[in-house]
């Protein structure tokens, strides 16, 4: 097991390297940029205070992301507790892309969460699986189903918008 100081250095490194991803995760839940920055700071404060509770099962990034989600949800459960099924993620600025906002809102809670973590927080399938506590295959399947749904709404118009 890593020594405490080494783990703090790892946490600090993730803070510096992955700050944007953590903020994006928080924005989806709190839907306010400043509040999301505060959530990430609070989450890292908690993570550092309980750095020795991480059992090195899975990645440190996923463990931190779960703390960020818990803080954003205003929860005090330990990081190892399962996350709620519905994280209530929404687009922070739905007016900027009403079509995407509608398409995302029509997805089931799980599909919406997976799409959000994949395309907004830019997390890998493996990392999403760790965060949500489900199998990678389940994440891939959920993502594929979500994309099938989104394709119906965004397909032609999405291509137009990109031209």
């Amino acid at each position, binding site marked *: 097991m890593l020594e405490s100081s080494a783990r703090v250095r790892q946490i*600090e490194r993730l803070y510096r390297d992955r700050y944007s991803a953590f903020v994006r995760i928080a924005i989806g839940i709190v839907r306010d940029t400043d509040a999301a920055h505060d959530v990430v700071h609070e989450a890292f404060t908690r993570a550092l205070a309980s750095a020795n509770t991480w059992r090195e099962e899975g990645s440190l990034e996923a463990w931190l992301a779960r703390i960020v989600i818990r803080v954003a949800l205003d929860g005090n459960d330990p990081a190892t507790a399962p996350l709620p099924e519905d994280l209530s993620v929404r687009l922070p600025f739905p007016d900027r892309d009403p079509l995407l906002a509608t398409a995302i809102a029509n997805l089931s809670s799980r599909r919406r969460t997976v799409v959000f973590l994949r395309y907004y927080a830019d997390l890998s399938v493996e990392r999403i699986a760790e965060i949500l506590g489900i199998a990678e295959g389940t994440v891939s399947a959920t993502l594929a189903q979500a994309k099938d749904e989104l394709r119906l709404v965004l397909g032609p118009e*999405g*291509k137009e*918008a*990109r031209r």
Partner: protein
Amino acid sequence: MTDPLDDDLRHRFAGQDDARLSARYRRPLSRGRRRRPASAWLTAAALLVVLATAVVVVVARRPPESPPNPTSDARGLSGRLLVRYAVDEFVRVDLGSGSSAPLPYEPPPTDVFPAIFHSGNRFVWQDAGVWSVDDALATPPARLSPVGVGQELLLPATPGTIWRVAQYPDGSARSAYRVRADSGAVVERFDPPRGRFITAAWGRKLLLRENGDRGTIWTPDGPSEVLADNVAGPLALTFVNSSLLRVRNLDTGRTTQVSLPPSGQYGKFTPRPDGTAIAFVEFPKGASRRIALADMRSGSVRILDSAVLGTNSEPVLAWTGDGRWLLVIDAARTVWVLDPTASVPPHTVTTLPQPTVGDILEAVAAG
């Protein structure tokens, strides 16, 4: 084979970022360095020696320059304004003439929380390093230091000096120095207590004492307990509740209670340099945003203007160095000048150029 929907979704989700996050995201944290052959280094070193010799000769022969004097407009407005877009674009404005020009500045590959302020005769800011430029803007910005470990918190200290505090993610300060704003030379070092970040309520990440009392924020100059914005002397701003703001001047110990307008949403608190007032923006729902002034002697609040800002602008405020004028930059990048005594109606100085990326983050003025 790549699914075009993947690209489309990434593109659409990228549109959900705010300017700060976009700017933070668009640059990788580290850029790979290309290895150059040894001969290239030798050639570069030889050229450097020749160049340095030439510079020494030229500088030795050149008479000392005096910085250009700022012009003054018909109402007596003068001074300089430094405006920052997103993370790495600066525009300098001569307030008297309204002329503006981009500041030559090569951004580093990483960025941290922005903060710019005026100290002595220098504009100082931070990104992945600490930068300084003379407020006459006669020379290019000079990099005082790279960021060390963790985050770097910059705070104004005495005129002409700044505090540099290296932070870890939990907000604990690992080192703190008072350095000269012109050269970065260390004036003083001290070992600070632990603290942690709180909200960026005053446009800058602040430290909270470890006891968790939101009203007391540790100041890096030692035993003092609070620092929010010491442009006007060390002031601590605390929301007692949604409509009551407590302002404490640490130099005098004087506390002023300010009853805020009933909209419940305020921001951009900007102390006047002489400490007698704090300008802020009221954000009423569905109505035009209003610029207000809280008097620090009486605690009363006066609406300075409700016409300059629309319902959807995120303004940036800055006082001129003499505290005579309040500068307001609206969403259309127009620089407005407001008279806190309301004897001169609001007027515009200039409209700033369109930035390459992002919105205006902050501005600071010098006398």
